[in-house]
């Protein structure tokens, strides 16, 4: 999984990058918020970002705000790095759109746990997006029949929007994915059998004449 690390302190950036690489993330490091934003809005953007709260130019909170405002459908988990003694930074950072925060200097076990939460959330979001795409594709193939249909009480033809009377099966087949296999139901078969027998009887005397 791709992770972006943004910190203007090269020591913090090196520690973070090496730690995340050790956990087998594909890490990109930038030194300021403007560069972080360029990576996040790019075509192959990372899904996870660890952003320093205080950076020259665009700070971490501002980057979060831009991601949520300009990339509302992006599946990105944003973690802010804040100082231990700045509770207000945490509140304003989360309000700006960060998903979580880690205090500096981070505790390695806490960082791992919080990054794992991010991976879980991003993976779940990816699965949900995939399901939505599958459902949209399925819905595109479903045709629905609804509304009041004028049908002839005798021949059972249906009058379409074009005012032509159509056989039930051709009307339904044209408006849904249903297909028809033709057969004879038992009551109709009984009636038909009687009719055929009557026809035979009518035919016999003629033949004997």
């Amino acid at each position, binding site marked *: 999984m791709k992770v972006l690390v943004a910190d203007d*302190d*090269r*020591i913090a950036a*090196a520690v973070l990058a090496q*730690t995340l690489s*050790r956990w087998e993330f594909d890490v990109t490091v930038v030194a300021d918020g403007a560069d972080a934003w360029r990576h996040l809005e790019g075509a192959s953007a990372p899904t996870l970002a660890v952003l320093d709260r205080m950076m020259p130019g665009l700070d971490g909170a501002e980057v979060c705000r831009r991601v949520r405002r300009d990339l509302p459908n992006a599946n990105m988990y944003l973690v802010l790095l804040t100082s231990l003694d700045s509770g207000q930074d945490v509140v304003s950072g989360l309000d700006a759109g960060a998903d979580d925060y880690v205090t500096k*200097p981070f*505790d*390695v076990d806490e960082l791992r746990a919080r990054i794992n939460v991010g991976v879980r959330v991003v993976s779940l979001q990816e699965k949900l997006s995939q399901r939505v795409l599958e459902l949209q594709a399925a819905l595109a193939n479903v045709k629905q029949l609804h509304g009041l249909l004028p049908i002839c009480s005798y021949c059972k033809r249906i009058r379409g929007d074009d005012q032509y009377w159509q056989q039930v099966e051709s009307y339904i087949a044209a408006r849904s994915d249903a297909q028809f296999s033709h057969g004879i139901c038992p009551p109709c078969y009984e009636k038909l059998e009687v009719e055929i027998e009557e026809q035979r009887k009518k035919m016999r005397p003629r033949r004997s004449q």
Partner: protein
Amino acid sequence: MTGGRQVFDRATFDRQLGGDRALGLQILQMFIEDCPERVAAIKRAVEQGDAGGLQTAAHTLKGSAGYLAAAFVVEVAVELERIGREGRLADAPSAVKQLEEAVARLMPEIERATLA
């Protein structure tokens, strides 16, 4: 230890880096290179009466020293950052002296650690 404050907690530093000795060495060397400029930036801000600059410079040093588990330097940097934030520049010179003392104690320990 300095008045109960640890100068450099090697065990915590190693643990934070997951026992990665190469990374540890890299970080220590970066700090040795960067620390003089960080301290100079703090002094410059104090001399120029730039409270905002002091806050930023102290914040940066606090961050770097934090990764080294250098509690004494972190503590003084936190105080300098607060002085900058609150604009109490009259309190800055004594805090700068304390910072110089903390750094003077830290650097030899770090240099020793790079040789270990």
